């Protein structure tokens, strides 16, 4: 089977900071892949590189067999890769509904899709429905995260990349979000997940990558990783 | 203190004459026209053998009608060691510049600017060859009076000249038994006089006298007519320019009154000058062409009489001018170095042309 997304020897920089060093990652259709790593390891940078927010200095990124290095981000989105960035980045001055509509920008001609999508989001997160006309900037942290996920789903992703979706959320919501990620995956969306809550992530994921200072240092199935000493010490706790 | 001694230091075969005019900005049309006339005079003088065996040469400094630019421009002329200066269009910029020339011992012949503040400074080396504001104000006020216009509105633009003219106009109107029912200031860059005209209309004046310059004057005239403000509309010589007609549009400009000394076109005996000017610049001479031309010729004449470019001698020669015949005027100076008699008239626009009304 050919991978849906394949990173080959990818190198990315911030100015002179070498953030990704010859990264190789493969993601197959229907999988949930977890990306683990400590602070500043380069997890977010990997996602940003895939979604073309930063351009790698070298290496290949193949999506459905086609190299997408240098393709502008909005084209990447059109092709079905959706990146829900770290820190939510919802549009604070727009209402919840407007945020969702923008999430469906690539489907802007399809009024029906937008309408159904909004309803789906409200089913997933009833809390958003209560506040549908509220400006997103006044939502609490957790509410904002819910909005960010629903907004990403509005773009009908084939591959959904989530950057720490549980950050700052109440335990009960974290459970909810993990459940929803699973649900989305079961409906056919491939998922690349960054999560500090490694326990939860490895429970969900099929496979995982461990990244340290810009290098992939380990990759294996979730079961194997869960038993690995190093992972237990740094990410899971005894 | 270095640059205070000057005058008479022109070496070589040229005599350097300073020119201070607004050759850029809103008054550039008139400024350039004055410069043209001066160049004509210089060419003629040089063709006739020059002065004191030397050629005259003009050194132009732009004052843009701004007092401070004028001061800098004047300093520049001083540092170039000009023998004398001809020019001065806006009183506002001529006032500070004249001080600089006075301190540097350089005589100045003012060809257009005519605020009464200029002679009041008491500089003995400053000579004015245009009629003065008080006379102009009186000419305007008398015309209103003759036509039975008693309730007058005065509008100036805060510039030295316009304010001076408006002040004297008020005096003259009141002396004639009229009443100034409005005294307004505008800012010269303004384009919209809508609410000012509304105010005028509510005052119901018999006559309105705008004492500023033509760029604003033209726009004001147009809006005056559009609003249907009653009474005469009169402007001072700062607005005496063909441009005021083209800006306002010929139909709005009809019946516009101007207080000014007549241009060359109206001067018997100036036909040759008008023809030459037209053929040279492809333009009709402007309102201050004749005066500017006269200014340069007067200087040349004084230099000849002084037989020197030295300050005291030149000043004395200018002061002693007797019956110098320029285009349309005979120049002699009064106690304050102003014209002994001025020659203001009322011009009126008829069919898009200035005509001599009175």
């Amino acid at each position, binding site marked *: 089977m050919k991978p849906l997304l394949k990173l080959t020897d990818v190198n990315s920089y911030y100015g002179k900071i070498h953030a990704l060093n010859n990264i190789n990652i493969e993601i197959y259709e229907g999988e949930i892949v977890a990306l683990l790593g400590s602070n500043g390891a380069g997890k977010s940078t990997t996602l940003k590189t895939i979604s073309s927010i930063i351009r790698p200095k070298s290496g290949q990124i193949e999506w459905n067999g086609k190299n997408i290095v240098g393709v502008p981000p909005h084209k990447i989105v059109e092709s079905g890769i959706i990146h829900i960035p770290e820190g939510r980045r919802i549009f604070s001055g727009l209402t919840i509904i407007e945020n969702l509509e*923008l999430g469906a920008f690539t489907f802007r001609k399809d009024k029906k899709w937008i309408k159904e999508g909004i309803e789906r989001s409200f089913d997933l997160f009833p809390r958003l429905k209560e506040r549908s006309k509220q400006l997103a900037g006044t939502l609490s942290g957790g509410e904002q995260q819910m909005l960010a996920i629903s907004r990403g789903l509005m773009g009908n992703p084939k591959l959904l990349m989530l950057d720490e979706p549980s950050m700052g959320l109440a335990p009960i919501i974290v459970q909810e979000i993990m459940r929803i990620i699973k649900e989305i995956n079961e409906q056919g969306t491939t998922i690349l997940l960054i999560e500090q809550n490694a326990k939860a992530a490895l429970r969900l994921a099929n496979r995982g990558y461990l990244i340290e200072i810009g290098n992939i240092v380990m990759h294996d199935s979730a079961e194997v990783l869960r038993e690995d000493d190093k992972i237990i010490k740094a990410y899971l706790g005894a | 203190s270095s640059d205070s001694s000057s005058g008479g230091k022109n070496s070589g075969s040229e005599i350097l004459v300073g020119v201070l005019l607004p050759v850029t900005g809103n008054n550039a049309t008139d400024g350039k026209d004055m410069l043209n006339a001066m160049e004509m005079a210089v060419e003629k003088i040089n063709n006739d053998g020059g002065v004191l065996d030397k050629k005259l040469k003009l050194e132009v400094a732009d004052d843009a009608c701004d007092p401070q630019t004028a001061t800098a421009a004047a300093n520049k002329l001083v540092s170039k060691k000009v023998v004398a200066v001809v020019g001065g269009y806006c009183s506002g910029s001529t006032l500070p510049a004249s001080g600089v020339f006075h301190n540097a011992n350089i005589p100045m012949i003012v060809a257009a600017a005519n605020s009464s503040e200029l002679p009041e400074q008491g500089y003995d080396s400053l000579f004015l060859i245009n009629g003065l504001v008080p006379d102009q104000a009186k000419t305007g006020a008398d015309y209103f009076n003759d036509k039975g216009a008693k309730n007058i509105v005065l509008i100036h633009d805060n510039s030295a000249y316009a304010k001076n003219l408006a002040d004297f106009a008020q005096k003259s109107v009141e002396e004639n038994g009229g009443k100034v029912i409005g005294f307004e200031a505008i800012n010269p860059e303004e384009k919209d006089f809508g609410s000012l005209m509304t105010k005028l209309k509510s005052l119901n004046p018999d006559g309105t006298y705008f004492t500023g310059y033509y760029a604003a004057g033209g726009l004001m005239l147009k809006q005056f007519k559009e609003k249907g403000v009653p009474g005469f509309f009169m402007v001072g010589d700062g607005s005496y320019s063909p441009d005021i007609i083209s800006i306002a*549009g010929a139909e709005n400009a009809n019946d516009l009154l101007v207080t000014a000394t007549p241009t060359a076109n109206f001067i018997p005996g100036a036909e040759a000058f008008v023809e030459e000017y037209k053929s040279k610049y492809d333009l009709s001479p402007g309102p201050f062409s004749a005066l500017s031309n006269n200014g340069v010729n007067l200087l040349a004449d004084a230099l000849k009489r002084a037989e020197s470019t030295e300050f005291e001698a030149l000043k004395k020669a200018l002061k002693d001018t007797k019956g110098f015949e320029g285009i349309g005027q005979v120049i002699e100076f009064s106690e304050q170095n102003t014209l002994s008699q001025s020659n203001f008239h009322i011009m009126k626009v008829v069919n898009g042309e200035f005509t001599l009304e009175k």
Partner: protein
Amino acid sequence: MEIFFQVLIDGLVIGAFYSLIALGYTMVYGIIKLLNFAHGDLYMIGAFVGFTLLSLFTGDGGVNTGILGLGVVFIGTMIIVGFLGMGIERIAYRPLLLAPRLSILITAIGVSLSLEYSSMIGWGASYKVYPIKLPNDGIQLLGTQISFAQMGMIVLSALLMLGLRLFIDKTIYGKAMRAIALDQTACSLMGVNVHRIIALTFFIGAFLAAGAGIMSGIYYGTINFLMGFTIGLKAFTAAVLGGIGNITGAMLGGLVLGILEAFGTFYMGGSWKDVLAFGILILFLVFKPTGILGAKEMERM
């Protein structure tokens, strides 16, 4: 009372011009937080391009252009200047999208100087008298006199404002503009072509400014290469007064400023009117720091 209404209308006319320019100002500001000091100059270029087209169109200086010809000139000019606005964005502003905001402000000043002085070279330094003039006819209303030209101007800018408002509020492109203002990266992650939307914004802004430029030429009669400067400042003031970034605010700010100036002229004199206008502006902002309609800055700790 009649006089009151008349001054109000005088103010509305000035205000309509301010509004039209303020709209473009506020849109560009709204999307990339740029105080586009060159915006007033697009108005000036509009006036000059219109001047040239009018003269070309009729060959007789435009006196007999007719209503249809006038329409063509208007649209043509607005499109030309609209593209100029886009070009300016592409060349001068886009490379600086990530630079400190004040740097782009300086670029805007540079663009402003470039536009002004290339117009001076192209069209001359002294003012030009517009080839056509509007008739003085009009109607009496509540004892005031309004010319058809004035009515047209006020109605036209109200319509344009309304259209823009709908565009920004209701269409997805309008929403994208607002979203870009908040977070460009997040926008591109939604599949929005950020540069294209920004370019569209500049086009619309320049388009409107050019329209105002021709109207001003026809209405007042003279144009010159520095005419955009003062009105640009006033439009900026209007946009801020209304709440910068807010479309209705820009319109309202323009009208309020125009009316303030008209009453200022009437009661305090033409040379003092700006003291009234700016004085009230300052006082107002002291009590409502985000302008008439400006949204409260939503920053959470």
